[in-house]
């Protein structure tokens, strides 16, 4: 496991030196500019809109990093041949793969943490400038800690997206990996529709196929509680716990599959 940690730290170092964390600055600019603009355009709804926008931005910036770095994690090593010097060192191939995964997850967690801190800071500042009666009338306080549930599930979703991107990158080109990962992400967000589709079709074969697809495809919609937390609707801890267990199980399976493919691969 020590090797996994060493590889992960190196991936994080690469992210820092390749200026991936600059995305945080982009996030901060988007958030601050939006809050200034929205503050001038809306009355009473600005904090809610910033919450919506902030959580969506955290998710989107994270998603872009997870997909576009995730697909290159293995491919870049093979293409540039740096893997030739690394794999003959005392490590197993699955240690290398897991290290790569953990390194990107570490980058994402730090990224999301800093973005979340900036998000709460902007909300706290906006609250200061909001009239007291509007603050009191809001369904939830501006800096509602309940929003952290959405952030936790965003991190889990990004971990799953990273695992899927890594899986595809073990055997396909970056373009195809990006396409497949993004495709699965979109399909996963409409997973519930698959189940409903199965219920209305006449063909039993098609119904069975959609049923299988529903269970096999990752249910990304389950990780999305942004709307609930913004509108102060309850998100039970048990739901978060179960979704976490589902996400982690899926990640383990995907990483296991990636490891199986990667362990058998020839690096010509």
């Amino acid at each position, binding site marked *: 496991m020590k090797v996994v940690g060493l590889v992960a730290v190196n991936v994080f170092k690469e992210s820092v030196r390749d200026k991936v964390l600059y995305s945080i600055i982009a996030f901060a600019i988007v958030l601050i500019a939006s809050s200034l603009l929205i503050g001038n355009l809306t009355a009473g709804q600005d904090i809610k809109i910033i919450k919506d926008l902030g959580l969506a931005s955290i998710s989107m910036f994270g998603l872009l990093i997870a997909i576009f770095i995730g697909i290159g994690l293995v491919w870049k090593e093979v293409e540039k041949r740096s893997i*030739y010097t690394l794999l003959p*060192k005392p490590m197993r191939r699955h240690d290398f793969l897991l290290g790569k995964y953990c390194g990107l997850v570490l980058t994402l967690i730090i990224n999301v943490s800093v973005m979340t801190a900036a998000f709460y800071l902007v909300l706290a500042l906006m609250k200061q400038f909001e009239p007291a009666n509007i603050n009191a009338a809001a369904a939830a306080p501006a800096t509602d800690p309940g929003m952290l549930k959405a952030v936790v599930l965003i991190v889990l979703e990004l971990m799953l997206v990273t695992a899927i991107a890594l899986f595809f990158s073990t055997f396909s080109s970056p373009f195809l990996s990006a396409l497949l990962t993004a495709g699965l992400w979109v399909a996963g967000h409409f997973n519930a529709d698959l189940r409903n589709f199965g219920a209305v079709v006449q063909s039993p074969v098609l119904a069975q196929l959609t049923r299988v697809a529903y269970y096999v495809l990752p249910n990304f919609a389950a990780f999305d509680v942004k709307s609930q937390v913004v509108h102060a609707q309850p998100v039970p801890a048990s739901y978060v716990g179960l979704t976490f267990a589902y996400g982690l199980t899926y990640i383990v399976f995907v990483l296991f599959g990636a490891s199986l493919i990667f362990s058998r691969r020839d690096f010509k």
Partner: protein
Amino acid sequence: MDAIRTEALTKHYKVGFWRPRPYLALDRLTLQVSRGEVFGFLGPNGAGKTTTLKLLMQLIYPTSGRAEILGRPVGDLSVKRRIGYLPEHPFFYDYLTAVELLEYFASLFGYAAAERRARASRLLDEVGIGAERRLQLRKFSKGMLQRVGIAQALINDPEVVFLDEPMSGLDPIGRREIREMILRLRDQGTTVFFSSHVLSDAETLCSRVAIMAKGRLVTAGTLSEMLAFQVRGWELVVSGMSEAALAAAKARGDVLRATAVGPGRFALELPLTPPPERTLATLVTQGASLVSLTPIRDTLEDYFVKQVSGATGSRFLETA
């Protein structure tokens, strides 16, 4: 126990998209390298040298056959701890400095921080990387990257080191320094297995060589074994020889060429037959005296060209 042993090691690749055909990259390679040897793995481009090294590093898997390093199957973690490898045209994480790269690789072997620093510093000194060691590797030239590559291959003081074209990209001074380093490794008892198509390097460094062509082992042995029986003539140096005697010997076909090396003193190139003793005896009766008699052997290059040009056959295998 051999340092390296392969038995009928074979690798096929599928080539082609619509109708993939098996392509023979390496064909039943059986080889033993003893501990402490400097072993030259020679062959023209595409001979199967890099394929063999990748199989030994388990970067690719064999179609059949087996390979062992230090008595253990390749890929075994205990083996990986005791070997070093320089790939052909190495590329490293270019966002790291040379020091960081070496320290990172040292950490994979489990060395403590102080030991990592000491090893990185010593090896970078040895390969001639000075103040540049604090620069990111993206600013390094090809030759400097090659030097870093050699340093990383030695980070764990390996018992067996595999070098794929180690002189590639190096200037003449760099080549000499690396030759000296390989000889130092040999003196320390390290087994060095290096692939090259530069034969002069092999002649200088190797105790044994193998010659590959078209994925097959053409021959393997010590340089003296390979070249001992390849005497293609004799160089006879005589003194006190007259121009008339020389002309007569040439007319008989006993002397192919003659070079005057002093008054009455000639270096004569004799054919393999008749035996040099007979020619010498004739010349002595005509007043000449023997100075020296030396066999003219093929160089490794001559031998290599003969062997490699004899390798024939398609590398595409018949499919049922």
